[in-house]
């Protein structure tokens, strides 16, 4: 009988805990905005000169990573079909800092030659209202070619998009780790 009381107490406590977690999760959702689609605009390099292959690699890697994160639609810059999409998030990226680095120096000296790129990411809705702004950096410090910095950036930026728009909306839980 004493054990039954303990079990009852444990079950009630655990039920209360689960319920409170669920309520908190519901409260964490910032708005009713549930995006299913994201559009990536061309990478802007206003004042900083960035090689063409870096710009293209940033753009393509970002699209690949966003697709992997589970967005239903990832639209490219200028895609006419994006105009009909509901709850569309538009991602604007502007390069703030770029250091080309040197792959040979990285491999020979290890502590030198890092490639680094810092990009200001702004997520807006279709009307252009800002939803989130954040600086994201991509680096290659040890292994890999210089373009690997674009992959690093894309992974981080897509993770931010996932956390702030997909994970909170609960519309899509098929998170893929890589």
């Amino acid at each position, binding site marked *: 009988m004493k054990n039954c009381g303990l079990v009852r107490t444990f079950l009630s406590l655990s039920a209360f805990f689960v319920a409170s977690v669920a309520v908190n999760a519901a409260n964490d959702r910032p708005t009713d905005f549930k995006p299913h689609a994201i559009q990536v605009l061309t990478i802007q390099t206003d004042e900083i000169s960035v090689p*063409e292959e870096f710009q293209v690699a940033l753009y*393509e890697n970002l699209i690949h990573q966003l697709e992997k994160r589970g967005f239903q639609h990832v639209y490219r*810059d200028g895609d006419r079909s994006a105009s009909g999409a509901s709850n569309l998030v538009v991602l604007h990226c502007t390069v703030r800092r770029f250091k*080309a680095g040197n792959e*040979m120096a990285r491999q020979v000296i290890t502590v030198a030659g890092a490639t680094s790129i810092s990009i200001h990411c702004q997520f807006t809705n279709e009307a252009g209202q800002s939803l989130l702004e954040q600086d994201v950096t991509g680096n290659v410090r040890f292994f890999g070619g210089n373009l690997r910095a674009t992959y690093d950036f894309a992974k981080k930026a897509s993770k931010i998009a996932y956390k702030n728009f997909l994970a909170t909306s609960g519309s899509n839980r098929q998170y893929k780790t890589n």
Partner: protein
Amino acid sequence: MITKGKRFLGIVPLLVAIAANPEIHAQQSSESAKAVQIIGLPGVKENAKGTLTVENGNLHFVRNGGVSDISAASIQAVVAGIDSQKAVGKTVGAMSMAAPYGGGRFLSLFRKKIDTLTVEYRDADGALHGVIFTMPSGKAESVKKDLLVAGAHTKATADQSTTREPTTRSSCTEVKQ
């Protein structure tokens, strides 16, 4: 018989001269170039190897699994550049990092020059795509010229060389609209 032999001897220096002339080689190889698609072609894996040609107003990338075409008219930017990569790469290069007395680092000093070809184009829906190819040194410029002749556009990137590493420079300066 003697006249035939003289004619043959006269042709030999000409053949040797043709074989030794790198420009003639470049013209012949500009028709097709072995290339590696780094990223961007829809349905093609990263670092896919194949052959790049410009035919009938299209950029063809032929690989083991199939063919990818990009219409030259849809290309809004094509930029050729120069880069370098490890002469000993992939698995052997990775394994060499464990070699004693800095053997792997020593191997990293040996690098080979490569060309990069960056292509930006729009598909039927107007969506922007970007593709990066690498190919042996000296090939990208000829492919780019072929694309420009076929109707592709390019953009001036003269200021890019200021931000690149010493081994890398942009070789695209002209503008064609």
